[in-house]
């Protein structure tokens, strides 16, 4: 392991910890919901007079909450494993967005991918997995902390695969001071323009 990769790996572990801590409340909340709704179904089903109408809404709610748990857990587990290289930009970005968007919703904030097909079409990058994750995760964390509304998109026609993170309400997003330099060491170009950040990955 080179000095650069060990440093970026350590940074990714730190970012992953922050992601896990932010999404833990959402995962636990959804699990609680499943537990409570299953208990409603169980106790009502035990009664001879129970009707399907009395059970259905709670079974549906438990099912939806279970889907949420699965989605969040899958994203977290996916990010906890080493990235498969070459790295798929969309896969890594969507995992981070899934975890951060759930936590943001709890704070009445909104993070969403504006153009999913464009993001999916970004393809792969030669940059190391940890570097890609650090760049996406820290930029999105900074954006969500700065603004109540964050849009993530992939501009069509860019010379390199690029993600654009924007705060439509014009709030200023400020990145960690060394992030641009750390990312540049892995060939990732981060440009900050007040309320927007662009991340360009090497092909």
């Amino acid at each position, binding site marked *: 392991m080179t000095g650069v990769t060990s440093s970026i790996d350590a940074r990714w572990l730190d970012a992953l910890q922050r992601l896990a801590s932010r999404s833990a409340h959402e995962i636990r909340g959804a699990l609680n*919901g499943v*537990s409570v709704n299953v208990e409603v179904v169980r106790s009502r089903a035990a009664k001879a007079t129970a009707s399907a109408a009395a059970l259905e809404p709670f079974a549906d709610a438990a099912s939806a909450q279970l889907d949420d748990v699965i989605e969040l857990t899958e994203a977290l587990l996916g990010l906890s494993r080493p990235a498969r290289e070459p790295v798929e930009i969309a896969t890594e970005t969507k995992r981070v967005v899934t975890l951060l968007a759930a936590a943001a919703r709890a704070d009445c904030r909104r993070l969403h991918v504006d153009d999913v097909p464009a993001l999916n079409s970004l393809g792969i990058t030669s940059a190391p997995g940890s570097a890609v994750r650090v760049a996406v995760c820290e930029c999105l964390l900074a954006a969500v902390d700065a603004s109540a509304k964050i849009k993530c998109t992939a501009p069509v026609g860019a010379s390199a695969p690029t993600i654009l993170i924007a705060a439509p309400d014009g709030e200023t997003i400020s990145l960690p001071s060394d992030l641009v330099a750390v990312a540049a060491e892995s060939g990732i170009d981060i440009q900050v323009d007040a309320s927007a950040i662009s991340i360009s990955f090497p092909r």
Partner: protein
Amino acid sequence: MKQANAKVLIADDEQSITSGLSAILSDEGYSVEIAPDGQKALERLSEDRYGVVLADLKMPKLDGLALLRELQQRQIPTECIIITGQATVDSAVQAMQQGAYDYIEKPLNAEKLNRLKALIPKAIEKFNVQQKNRELTSRLEGLTHYGELTGQSDAMREVYQVIDAVAPSNASVLILGESGTGKELVARAVHSKSERAKGPFFALNCAALPKEILENELFGHEKGAFTGSTNEKPGAFEMSSGGTIFLDEVAEMSPDIQVKLLRALETRQVRRLGGRKEITVDIRIVAATNKDLQKALAEGDLREDLYYRLAVVQIDLPSLRERSQDVQLLATEFLERFASQNGKRISDFDTAAWEWILSYHWPGNVRELKNAVERAVIMARGDKIGVNDIMPRHLRNAGEVPSSVTIQVGATVSDARRQLVLRTFASTGGDAERTAKLLGVAADDVRGDLLALINGSNGDGATNGTTPSGADPGGKAGSGAAKKSPPAKKR
């Protein structure tokens, strides 16, 4: 043990949990409501009664701990069960220390939900018991208190009934009573129980102010109305519009101000001194006097037309000697109040002090009793107030000798003897030896009579059925000495 239809409030922002929890508790027979944050929960709890509130520790606007604090500060009755994530167990323990009934940790699995189902009926039972206690306390308080007035005698109950009846109307009220009987407190009660309670209450003592100043206070003045009046000033009528004016010692008001007052009452309009403009006012007048009204009317001190305007409803406030049943209650209340204010640990009056308090005729009424107790509390050195602490120096030295003892026809000889002993004892400043000498009996007999009086018996086991003349010179008998005796715990 389940309390069907008891109200439960769930205060939690996580809809994923609240709807299921609500269904589970509804199935258990509770009436369940949901508040999505602590602030909304507080609003609901302020408006309605909930036996139990299930509060999440982490909520927007007002978290579980802050909600608990607010409930306690505002004295909102409910039992609070805190729901918490594992990471916040310390806070839940803190909540318990602050008065929460219990806490449940998330995740709310079947085991925890069963625990919750078992906890809620117990919490509701505690709430119901405390609710009954609160109602009982309030009912007991209602038996002895009415607003700021204290008294449970029939005479005071009649006063309370009149206040209840007259307060909602706009009728003028005239309060008659000796100095120190609490006329202003009655006026305040009339105000606070009326729809004008949110408006101002303005009290003016007509005897305490020179004529010109009283006129100025009542009606105000325009700028330049008289030498030195550099600014305009609204009077009491304007300032208390929408509220109540209390005019104490109204019979002391000069005749020309009485004319102006009468006009203001009739037209509901006032004119400031030096002013030309009529100002419409919305005012209720409560007046009071300690003068002999018939004499005041006959001698022209009080205009008859003003009297009839003021005395739409008349409240006769009894003197303390006419409600001697209240003396003990008042003395005890003043003792507690002044001991607390002065940081003194005084638990009671001693037997001799009680004897004197109950036998003295309190010409200065409640005010005199209050001042005497305050002075006694300050002077007392032990944990009980003695007769020398409570009795004013001038009575101790000279003795206030009552001129007569009134005995009802039909009273027994032992009753008459007891009244004579009691009044003489009071007149000697609580000196049993001197009492005995004056009455020509043995000091032990005097002590025996006094003791029997305090114990509510006539010495041969019968209940004492008369009122000591010193406590009821007006002869309004019927309130037995048993009612006047200090309670057993006091001795």
